[in-house]
């Protein structure tokens, strides 16, 4: 069935339980790789990276008894497609209240696709200081063949090989009526 954008629902690849398990695993992998929560700074990329980052930070607190620093990045001002026709994005706020200097940053986003969003987030981070290390955690990786920049994730909830005509929708209760990850397809006419 086509939705309001003419997209056709193909399949549900995550339900709330799977999503929760994936985020728990990401949190423990992050803690394991970084030997604890010390100096960790979890940074969500607007918009759907933000609640995911918050959930990962909560899970790290459950594991380690210490809540890592947490912030939000809005990449609009750093996009590389601002001058192209049709792009007129809305600017939202970046909230990095704690110093990122010498921290271990975990960037969190819902989907890794071309890598361009991550490039913009990295550029912005560097304007705030010099972190010790930056790692990337994503709920869904659409596969390396779509990458337009040399960027890979360090922590992946699920790798989903997709076609260009397909769209991944991560739905979160903060913004959407249900919690799920869906694959949609743009109909070819």
């Amino acid at each position, binding site marked *: 069935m086509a939705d309001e954008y003419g997209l056709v629902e193909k399949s549900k690849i995550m339900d709330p339980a799977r999503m929760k398990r994936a985020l728990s695993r990401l949190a423990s992998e992050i803690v394991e790789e970084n030997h604890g929560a010390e100096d960790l700074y979890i940074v969500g990329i607007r918009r759907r990276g933000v609640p995911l980052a918050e959930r990962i930070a909560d899970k790290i607190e459950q594991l380690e008894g210490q809540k890592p620093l947490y912030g939000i990045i*809005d990449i*609009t*001002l*750093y996009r590389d497609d*601002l*001058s192209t*026709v049709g*792009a*007129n*994005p*809305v*600017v*939202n*706020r*970046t*909230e990095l209240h704690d110093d990122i200097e010498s921290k271990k940053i975990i960037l969190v986003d819902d989907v890794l696709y071309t890598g361009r969003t991550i490039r913009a987030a990295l*550029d*912005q981070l560097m*304007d*705030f*200081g010099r972190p010790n290390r930056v790692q990337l955690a994503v709920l869904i990786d659409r596969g390396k063949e779509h990458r337009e920049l040399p960027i890979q994730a360090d922590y992946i909830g699920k790798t989903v090989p997709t076609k260009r005509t397909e769209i991944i929708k991560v739905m979160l209760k903060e913004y959407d009526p249900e919690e799920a990850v869906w694959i949609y397809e743009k109909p070819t006419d």
Partner: protein
Amino acid sequence: MNKPFRRRDLLGIRSLSAEEIVGILNTAENFREINAREIKKVPTLRGKTVINLFFENSTRTRTSFELAAKRLSADAVNISVSSSSVAKGETLVDTALNLDAMQPDCIVVRHSSAGVPHQLAQVSRAAIVNAGDGANEHPTQALLDAMTIREHKGKIEGLEVAIVGDILHSRVARSNIHLLTKLGARVRVAGPKTLVPADFSHFVDNGLEVCPHIEDAIDGADVVMILRIQKERMDSAFFPTLREYSIHYGLTNERLELARPDAIVLHPGPMNRGIEISSDVADSSRSLILDQVKYGVAVRMAVLYLATGGAAVGE
């Protein structure tokens, strides 16, 4: 003239809807954070050119626009009248067409005659932003005033705002009256009869009242906005002496007592201490004059971003 995709002029507040005003203010809120960073620069308008075309003196507004452009990585060029070819006899439109031929993305214009930005908007491909035209409008000043009020009062709707001074010649007052009444504030104006036309309440459909005395305007106000008295007006016999103006219309601590206890004081600058505002009021914690200047940069960043193709929050 057809402007390139989504290029938009900001000619005044009068032609904007309440939703558009709120969209600009919300966008400006999100730009504030950049001005508090150690590296106060984002690459957003890289490669874009902003021309500040000032036919009238200005330090604050021009610097504010220049910083706004530079913090967005645009190239900013300042042209002031003393160094321009206008002095050599070129017409306004020819000046604009010549600048436009150099393909800037935005021209910020200030002129002593009302309507100049509107005229330039007809002939230029670049987006035109009005930085003050005669006694007509000064939209970015009203926007930064609104931002200051929202920051301290949390809202604009339902507030009582007193505007005191030379209403007749003030573009700041006009833009503010449009903005504040569109967003649901009640505005009271006061000043010498020669500077506040008695039928001025018809200037907007509703929400504006003309008061005979400064005390009537300030009484119970949430916001007191003091306008600069332009000394050159004295020569045209609009009022007898500065001392007399100060006695009848100067904002003092005693007069401010009439306002609400949490009332705030705004002044668009540059202020004449001891004339329209006493030094103890200007330096008190209720005076937000430097906040206005601070928010001015964020407002102008938002305006330049929207003029050159960005979308406002809520759009």
